C-alpha cells in the first residue's frame, strides 16, 4: 500500500471495499488469524491497521485469541511503530533479519545492519508476545561452520520462532546473472544438503525443531496463519497481488487480485473488488495442492482428509518411496522422513497420482 496522506486513505477505502467483497463470497465465518505481509506493512499508519482489523471484525467473527501477525524489516524506522501497532491489536511480528553478518546483508541488498536488526528485535520483544525472525542461509561463500556460528548466535537471541530459508537463485535477478557468470560461489547441492542437515540438528537441540521445511518453533509457537496454508485451510487474500483459497458453495476456489497497486485500487473503486482471477480448482488440482503443501509439514497429511477430498496417492510411487525410506505412514498420517525432506520435490512427484 502507498503510505501516508490522501493516498493511504484511498487505499484504506479500497481495502475495506474488498474485505466486503470477500465477506460476501465467504458468508459468515470465524477468522482465526490475520497476516499483514508483502511489501512493508510495518510502514502503514497504525490507524490504518486498526481500521482494517475493525473491518474484519465487522465482516466476520474475529476469534478472541486470533493471531495477528505483521511482517517488518528490522530497522529503527519501522520499530518506532511497534508500540502503536501492538495497541491496535497486532500480537505477533515477523522480522526479516536475513543475516547477522553486515557484509552478507549488503550482498543481499538489505538496508539494515546486524546491530540495527538486533536493536529492532529488542524493541519488538518489548511489545509483542510473539516474535519470529527470518534468516537466509546457503549464501555465497557460506560454509557449514560459519552458518553454525550464525545460527547459534540467532538462537541466543531467544526467539521462539525461526524461518530459515536456503537462498534460492531466482531467474532474472542480479543473483542469477552473477551465478550464471560463475561469479557467485553458491554452495553446490552436496554442501546445501549438509547445511540443511546441520540446521536441523542445531535447531532440534535448541528445542526449535522444524515443523515445516524452513520453519522452526518451540511447540505451540508455530505460526498458526502459515499452518493454515500448509493444511490447505481456507484463506482470503486482500490487497494487490493477493492469493486466496476459499470454499465457495462447497467448491475450493482460487482467487487472485491484480498485482500493480494502482491498478488494483482503481479496479476496486470501479468494481468493488481487485480480482483478476477467480475459478474453481479441479479436484486433481486441489489434491495436488493438498499434497504439495501438507507434505512440507513435519506432521504430514491426514490420509482420511485426503480421501475426503477425493484424492489418492500413486500406489506404485508410494510403495517405492516407503521402500526407500522417504516417507512413512503412521496411524493414518503420511509424513516425509528426514531423508525424504531434503528431496521433497522429487518425493512429491512420485506420490502425486
Amino acid at each position: 500500500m502507498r503510505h501516508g496522506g490522501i493516498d493511504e486513505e484511498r487505499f484504506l477505502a479500497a481495502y475495506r471495499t474488498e474485505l466486503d467483497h470477500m465477506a460476501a463470497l465467504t458468508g459468515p465465518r470465524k477468522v482465526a488469524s490475520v497476516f499483514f505481509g508483502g511489501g512493508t506493512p510495518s510502514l502503514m499508519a497504525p490507524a490504518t491497521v486498526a481500521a482494517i482489523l475493525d473491518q474484519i471484525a465487522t465482516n466476520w467473527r474475529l476469534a478472541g485469541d486470533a493471531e495477528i501477525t505483521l511482517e517488518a524489516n528490522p530497522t529503527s524506522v519501522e520499530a518506532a511503530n511497534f508500540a502503536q501497532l501492538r495497541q491496535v491489536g497486532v500480537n505477533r511480528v515477523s522480522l526479516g533479519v536475513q543475516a547477522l553478518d553486515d557484509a552478507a546483508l549488503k550482498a543481499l541488498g538489505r538496508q539494515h545492519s546486524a546491530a540495527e536488526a538486533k536493536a529492532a528485535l529488542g524493541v519488538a520483544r518489548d511489545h509483542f508476545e510473539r516474535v519470529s525472525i527470518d534468516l537466509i542461509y546457503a549464501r555465497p561463500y557460506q560454509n557449514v561452520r560459519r552458518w553454525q556460528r550464525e545460527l547459534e548466535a540467532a538462537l541466543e537471541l531467544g526467539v521462539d520462532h525461526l524461518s530459515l530459508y536456503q537462498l534460492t537463485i531466482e531467474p532474472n535477478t542480479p543473483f542469477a546473472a552473477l551465478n550464471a557468470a560463475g561469479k557467485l560461489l553458491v554452495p553446490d547441492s552436496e554442501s546445501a544438503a549438509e547445511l540443511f542437515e546441520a540446521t536441523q540438528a542445531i535447531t532440534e537441540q535448541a528445542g526449535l525443531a522444524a515443523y515445516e521445511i524452513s520453519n522452526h518453533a518451540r511447540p505451540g509457537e508455530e505460526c498458526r496463519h502459515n499452518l493454515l496454508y500448509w493444511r490447505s485451510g481456507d484463506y482470503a487474500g486482500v490487497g494487490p497481488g493477493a492469493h486466496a483459497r476459499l470454499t465457495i458453495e462447497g467448491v475450493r476456489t482460487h482467487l487472485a487480485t491484480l498485482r500493480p497497486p494502482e491498478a488494483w485500487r482503481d479496479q476496486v473503486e470501479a468494481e468493488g473488488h481487485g480480482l483478476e482471477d477467480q475459478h474453481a480448482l479441479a479436484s486433481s488440482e486441489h489434491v495436488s495442492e493438498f499434497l504439495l503443501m501438507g507434505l512440507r509439514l513435519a506432521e504430514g497429511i491426514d490420509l482420511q482428509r485426503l480421501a475426503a477430498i477425493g484424492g489418492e496417492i500413486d500406489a506404485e510411487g508410494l510403495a517405492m518411496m516407503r521402500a526407500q525410506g522417504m516417507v512413512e505412514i503412521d496411524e493414518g498420517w503420511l509424513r516425509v522422513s528426514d531423508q525424504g525432506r531434503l528431496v521433497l520435490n522429487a518425493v512429491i512427484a512420485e506420490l502425486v497420482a
Partner: protein
Amino acid sequence: MAEPKTVPLALIRNFSIIAHIDHGKSTLADRLIQTCGGLSAREMREQVLDSMELERERGITIKAQTVRLDYTAKDGQTYRLNLIDTPGHVDFAYEVNRSLAACEGSLLVVDASQGVEAQTLANVYQALDNDHEVIPVLNKVDLPAAEPERIQQQIEDVIGLDASGALPISAKTGEGVADVLEAIVTRLPAPKGDEAAPLKALLVDSWYDAYLGVIVLVRIIDGHLKKGQKVKLMASGTSHLIERVGVFRPKQEMTGHLGPGEIGFFTAAIKQVADTRVGDTVTDDKAPCAAPLPGFKEAQPVVFCGLFPVDAAEFEDLREAMARLRLNDASFSFEMETSAALGFGFRCGFLGLLHLEIIRERLEREFDIDLITTAPSVIYKIHMTDGAEIELHNPADMPDPVKIERIEEPWIEATILVPDEHLGAVLKLCEDRRGRQQTLTYAGTRAMVVYELPLNEVVFDFYDRLKSVSRGYASFDYHIVGYEPGPLVKMSLLVNAEPVDALSIIVHRDRAEARGRAMCERLKDLIPRHLFKIPIQAALGGKVIARETIAALRKDVTAKCYGGDVTRKRKLLDKQKAGKKRMRQFGQVEIPQAAFIAALKIEEN
C-alpha cells in the same frame, strides 16, 4: 482439354540438373522456369520446386521434380524442355539415378566458390554412365569468393570432363541463364523414339497426391500414352485404365496425351505407391512392346532402427501413420517389433540417416506422435553353425554367440574430398572407424581420398564428425560394395542392473570397450539423478567392460512455499509430471526419450 500439339522429337530436350548439395540446382531451376514464363512473378518464390514443408525448412531438395517449359530459342523455334531438379544429398542418390534414366543430358552445376565436391563426382559419373551429354555450369559467380576459371580447370583435372564450354552463371541474379537455355537446345541431343511403335515408357517415379491419388511419372520412349488407354506395368504384371494424363509446368496441366520423348504423368486408380515399381516398363495392355526396358535397381533400405511411441497407447496411431507415409515413400520399410524395454514398436528401414531423420520428423510433426528412436543398425549376415543364414536388422535379436559360425557386415566405398589442411584429421577419422585407404590423389590443394569402411561405423555420426573435423570443408559420398566377415559382438547396456535392449549395439570387438565406456559416460549425463544411485554398465555377454554410477539426488526442495506460491508450485509439479511422461521407465529408472539416440553420439577428440 486441348488436343495435344505433338512436337517433333527434334524440338524436345530432356535434362536433369545435378550437383553437390546446395550448389544451386533448385535456384537454377527457378530461373529457368521464370525465364520461360512457367510461373507468374506472383507465383514465384525461391526454390519453388521444393514444395514439401521439410524441404522448405531445411533448404534442401528431397524429391526430384519435373517441369515442362516452352523456350523460344535464338533460331526462332519453340522447344519443349523437360527439366528434372534432383536432390544433392547422398541418401537420395536413387532419385538422381532414376531422373538421369529419363533424360539425354545433364546440367552439372558446380558452385564456383566451392568447386567439385563428392556428390559432384558421384552424380556426374552416373550421368556419364547414362550416356548423357553434360554441360558444366559454374554457378554463384556473383559471390566475391567465386573463382570460375580455377573451378573450370578443376572440373577438367578432377572429373576428366571437357570444361571448355562451361558456362559461368549466377542462378541468384539470373546472369548467364540465357546462355544456359541456348546451350540446352544447341548442345544437348534430342530424344529418339518411334512414334509408330507400341507404347514403351519408363516408370520414373510415383507418389501419392491427396487429390489425385497415386501419380505416376513416366518418360515415353516409343508410341503414345492416352487418357482411357489400358496399360500394363510389365514387371508388376498389373493392368490399369488411364484416367488422367498431364504434365507439370510446374503446375499440373492435363494434356490427355504424351508422345515419344516426352515426360509427364498419369493417374489410374492405383491404391498405393508400392503397387508401382520404379524402373518398370509401361506398355499398352493389348499391343505390348516386345521387350521391357532394362529398368534399374530398387532403392534398398540400408539403415535400420526401432521407432517406439513414447506413450504405449499410441502404437496403433503410429502404425497408421507409418502406413500413410509408406503410401508415398516405398523406400521406407517397417515391420512390427517388440522390445522388452520399450514395448510395441516398429523396426524401420531407411536409405540413410537423413532419410531416417526426415521420416521421424514427419511422424512426430504431421501425426503428432512422440517417438523413441533406438540405435541405428545395418543389416548383418549371420552364418549359423548349423549352416543357416540369418539377416539381422536388430542387435536385440542377435542369436546365442555359441551358435554363430561367423558374422558378416556391409562395407562401403567412400569418396571424400577435402582441402589439404584438413586431410590429416579426415584420415585419422577414417582409420579410427576401421577404414582401409584405397587411393589418395590431389587436385591442387584438394585431396580426394577413397576409403573402404564398414557401414556400421559410418551409419551413425560419421558424417557429422567428418564435417566437424574438416570445419565443414569435406564432402562425402558412398556406395555399398559388399559383405565381409568381422569379429563383431553384441554389447548390452545395463541400467540399474537391468539390460535395456533398445540400447544394445553390435560393435567390433576391439572397439567395444571404448564404445562401452563412452556410452556409459553419455548416459550418466543423460539420465537425470534419481532418489537412489544408479549403476550403468556395458557388458559383452556376462562380462562388464565399462561402468559409471549416477549419484543419488542430494537436495531438491523448495525453500519457501506459502499461500501465494501454491498455484505456481502446482504448475511446476504438473510440468515435472509431464516431463516424467516423456521418459521411459526401466525398473525404477526413468530414461528420457532423447537418451536412446544421444547415448550414441560420442565425442571423439
